[in-house]
């Protein structure tokens, strides 16, 4: 059950191992998938190092690499998600939403943007409106954190009596 709650490390290793691939093979598959969609990715040796770091949880893959993983494992996700009691499309949607959440700026970055916006004279928004917009963004950011925690709890702890009529 932990696999889907930790998309950046254990899941990646499990997906790779489910195919019987070693890390260099995984790097080749990522490059192949990137080539098909015309994307630039790191060189083979760089990818090998990055994959090892992602699987150890030392670094989180950027969104484009997560999407490449999803592209590569879309078919086999059916089996993995089956083991977690989730539909394939649902598992992919879950991973995509988590990836979007991971790409959001933190409250400090929002405050920096707010200060930068306030430093310029505006015709369309007053300073009070800009402050309100930043405050609203931070409030939603906190809700995102709350919902992610709620989601992780739901994914980690099957409800009592699950599977019973």
């Amino acid at each position, binding site marked *: 059950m932990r696999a889907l709650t930790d998309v950046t490390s254990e899941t990646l290793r499990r997906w790779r191992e489910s195919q019987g691939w070693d890390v260099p093979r995984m790097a080749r598959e990522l490059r192949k998938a990137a080539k098909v969609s015309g994307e630039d990715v790191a060189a083979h040796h760089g990818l090998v190092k990055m994959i090892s770091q992602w699987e150890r949880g030392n670094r989180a893959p950027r969104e484009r690499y997560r999407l490449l993983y999803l592209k590569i494992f879309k078919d086999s996700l059916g089996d993995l998600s089956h083991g977690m009691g989730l539909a394939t499309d649902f598992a992919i949607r*879950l991973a995509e*939403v988590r990836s979007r959440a991971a790409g*959001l700026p933190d409250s400090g970055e929002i405050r920096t*943007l707010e200060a930068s916006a306030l430093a*310029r004279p505006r*015709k369309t928004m007053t300073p009070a409106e800009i402050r309100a917009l930043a405050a609203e963004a931070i409030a939603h950011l906190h809700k*995102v954190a709350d919902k992610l925690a709620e989601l992780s709890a739901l994914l980690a702890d099957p409800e009592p009596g699950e599977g019973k009529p």
Partner: protein
Amino acid sequence: MITREDQIRQVLAELDGHIAAVEASIAVLTTLSAGGEALEDEGPR
């Protein structure tokens, strides 16, 4: 009866909404901080 998957879908939908709200606000703040003007609400012309 609400299943675990229903609960997850509900949380996921709420999460999606909050992420979209943050992204929209960030887009406006980024435009403003870059020297642009936020788009005004479209009204009758």
